[in-house]
């Protein structure tokens, strides 16, 4: 399980990446993150949904009402063009960080 301080700066990137692949609603996104990271990154739903609200405010993602389930509609999130641009930028940043860490620590840390 990863320390949440280490990954905090990259949560936005992860969410934008997943929403870039497919529109999702909040809980679906939480399940997707858990399954893709083999439960090593157990993002709290309190954090995830708050990030969604922040990203929506910054217009990096947008939401719309989707299919009905049990009489209630779900709110789906999709990535905006601004979000895609931001994602590319964060990805470059991540690559740079990755490179720095590998160059200094070595690829296996030894």
């Amino acid at each position: 399980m990863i320390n949440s301080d280490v990954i905090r700066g990259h949560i936005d990137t992860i969410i934008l990446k997943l929403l870039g692949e497919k529109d999702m609603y909040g809980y679906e996104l939480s399940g997707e993150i858990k399954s893709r990271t083999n439960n090593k990154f157990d993002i709290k739903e309190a954090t995830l949904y708050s990030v969604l609200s922040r990203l929506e405010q910054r217009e990096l993602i947008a939401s719309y009402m989707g299919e009905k389930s049990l009489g209630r509609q779900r709110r789906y999130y999709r990535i905006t063009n601004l979000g895609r641009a931001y994602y590319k930028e964060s990805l470059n940043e991540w690559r740079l960080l990755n490179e720095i860490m590998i160059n200094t620590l070595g690829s296996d840390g030894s």
Partner: protein
Amino acid sequence: MNKIKSFVTRLLKGMFNDQDKRELIEILTRSLEEKVDDLVEAGTPVQEAIKRSINEFGSSDDVLDAFPDKEKLRSKKIKSRFNKLIFALAAYLIVCALVLFVNYLFIDFFANYWWSGIVAIGALFWPLSMFYAYLKAKR
């Protein structure tokens, strides 16, 4: 489903300014309700689904984790001012009650003078100043 909304409202008590908070409460509540729906669809009884969703949700610190440090500090400040306000109010009420009681008990000794009223007005500075400090942090 009101249980979920009141849980979320309680979780965010004293954090964020009013508009951000309204939006956040709405989003958190809806996402939690969607989770409950999913669990119910998968065969969990409604009450258990609500309980489980609330238990797994996380704390107010987890909510703050979603925000950059600056905003996080601000929210913490608002929360601490809010707590100080509550403390000041409670202390004020206790002091007033005590003074009033002493005044009442020895009213003959004080020549029927209700001086406790003056103390009550004077001591108002404490909760009032805390109230304004809270409003200032919240703005």
